[in-house]
């Protein structure tokens, strides 16, 4: 099937969370019918997109029925009552396959729920299933999944971005109203950009990492995908807050993100960093982002040109810090307590090696090797320590910038979605797809990607809004203003 034929029924915008919630509460729609409708769409379209790896139909229908019963009694409904939501397969769900896109966890069923999953359940969400992603969230195209690539619903020959490709694609194709993704170097924002949906990177510590299969613990974040800024704000409101099960979870109060998404932007100071508009930026992407900036100016923002001079060092810092942490985190996959164990091992040492060799894919091994190298005796100071020092410079540069502006606007990615196979043989080319997103990851600040237009080929372009630590309300305000203009065009 060609991409063109399939675009019609594949691309569909979900109903808004607010409307769905109201219709369930006033009993004009039943949560069980909504859930059945989603499973019917998944059955029809998932074979083309490959977004879902596992469905949790029994649990979902049980939750939907409970919501309908609450509605029938006239009880007040929780914030996400009856809302169908998908979960990236790096987040633990009790008793449900949780593979992280890896063979090594093919049969793993965690004995507990991730905190983000618990919060969704408690808010009445109907959890549809688990979503495909790059193995251990390592990748920018979703081609590194052991369970096959996810295809972009806008054009099936193109990647959905990664690593949260399934999470972005399923919202774009209305196979979920919202989804959970994770972002270590851009894994929420870049696929949101490629698929034409909203994806939010919350401030480090804002959403608990408990139950997230760790890639790089000082960078990993959990955040929502949705079809609109308002819906993304609704889901983040449920996810955000302190959790004693995550030692890096923040105690700062949670803002009213939903209200922020409908506030105007008059008088906001928006920084435009020169370094994000240089060589390598596709001209069509640039034009769409500049149109978004013009829209912000027209709505009363003060546009300021700023410098973030160390931006070019972010990719090298990221690939040292992230791989060093990954090499330590992935040491736990040794075939002893959970996951795959090779059957051809004869002693303990060969069991470790063969289980890991047979269980991990090429990109995961590459990153473990790079991280182990950067941490090894004789190289630690030159690589890992150096990267941590430059990381501080990058973070402080952002803190300084946020003394002068309320938010920063950039492209989310240098190009629109590329073709499947286009970069899969060249790790360096693939890593450069993250050039505008890794900076916020390293600095711990919040960010999001909001659609701001399309290329002449019809591919979505995302505009990235970055905010200071715990500045989520500011980025929702700015994103909603971009969205208003993009919609009316």
């Amino acid at each position, binding site marked *: 099937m060609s991409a063109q034929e399939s675009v019609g029924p594949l691309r569909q915008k979900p109903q808004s969370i607010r409307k769905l919630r109201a219709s369930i509460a006033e009993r004009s729609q039943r949560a069980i019918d909504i859930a059945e409708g989603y499973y019917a769409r998944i059955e029809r379209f998932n074979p083309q997109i490959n977004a879902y790896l596992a469905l949790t139909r029994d649990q979902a229908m049980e939750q939907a029925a409970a919501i309908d019963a609450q509605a029938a009694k006239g009880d007040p409904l929780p914030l996400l009552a009856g809302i169908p939501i998908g979960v990236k397969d790096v987040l633990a769900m009790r008793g449900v396959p949780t593979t992280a896109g890896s063979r090594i966890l093919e049969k793993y069923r965690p004995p507990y729920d991730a905190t983000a999953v618990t919060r969704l359940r408690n808010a009445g969400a109907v959890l549809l299933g688990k979503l495909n992603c790059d193995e251990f969230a390592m990748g920018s195209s979703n081609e590194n999944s052991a369970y096959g690539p996810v295809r972009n619903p806008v054009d099936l020959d193109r990647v959905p971005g990664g690593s949260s490709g399934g999470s972005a694609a399923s919202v774009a194709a209305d196979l979920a109203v919202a989804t959970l993704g994770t972002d270590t170097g851009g894994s929420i924002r870049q696929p949101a950009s490629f698929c034409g949906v909203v994806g939010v990177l919350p401030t480090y510590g804002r959403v608990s990492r408990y139950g997230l299969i760790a890639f790089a613990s000082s960078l990993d974040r959990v955040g929502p995908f949705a079809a609109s800024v308002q819906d993304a704000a609704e889901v983040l409101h449920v996810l955000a807050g302190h959790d004693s099960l995550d030692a*890096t979870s923040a105690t700062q109060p949670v803002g009213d993100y939903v209200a922020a998404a409908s506030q105007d932007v008059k008088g906001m100071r928006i920084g435009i960093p020169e370094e994000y508009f240089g060589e390598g930026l596709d001209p069509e992407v640039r034009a769409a982002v500049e149109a978004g900036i013009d829209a912000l100016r027209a709505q009363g923002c003060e546009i300021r040109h700023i410098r973030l001079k160390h931006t070019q060092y972010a990719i090298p810092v990221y690939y040292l810090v992230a791989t060093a942490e990954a090499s330590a985190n992935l040491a736990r996959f040794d075939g002893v307590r959970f996951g795959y164990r090779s059957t051809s091992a004869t002693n303990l040492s060969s069991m470790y090696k063969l289980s890991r060799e047979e269980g991990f894919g090429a990109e995961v091994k590459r990153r473990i*090797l790079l991280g182990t190298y950067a941490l090894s005796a004789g190289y630690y100071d030159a690589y890992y320590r150096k990267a941590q020092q430059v990381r501080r410079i990058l973070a402080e540069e952002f803190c300084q910038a946020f003394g002068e502006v309320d938010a920063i606007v950039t492209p989310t990615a240098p190009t629109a979605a590329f073709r499947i196979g286009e970069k899969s043989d060249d790790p360096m080319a693939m890593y450069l797809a993250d050039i505008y997103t890794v900076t916020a990851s390293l600095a711990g600040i919040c960010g999001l990607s909001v659609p701001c237009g399309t290329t002449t080929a019809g591919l979505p372009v995302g505009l990235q809004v970055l905010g200071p*630590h715990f500045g989520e309300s500011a980025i929702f305000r700015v994103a909603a203003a971009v969205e208003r203009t993009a919609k009316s065009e």
Partner: protein
Amino acid sequence: MSAEVTIAEVERVAELANLELAAEEAVRMQRDLNAILGYVDQLRQIDTSQVEPMAQVGELFVANQADGRGESLRADVLRPSLQRADVMDSAPETDGAFFKTPKVIER
């Protein structure tokens, strides 16, 4: 810092990481590691002699948290943890109480 990584080094690192690479895999990893490390080399341009390494971003904003390093520790009190049976369900080989592995010490 920019010296080429040799096959022997790739093998040494693989050993440290408990990975067993096939011969052709080692060649490919050598090529990729050299490409990435070559790119990473540009960090040498920055003078970091006066910069403290940053391990956690929490260092920047959580002066209000107990240890000032971006972490908050919970009170050390007993709480229920996961059930042993639930955990052992995931083990490749177990007798119900312990994880079983191939022989550790060869006699």
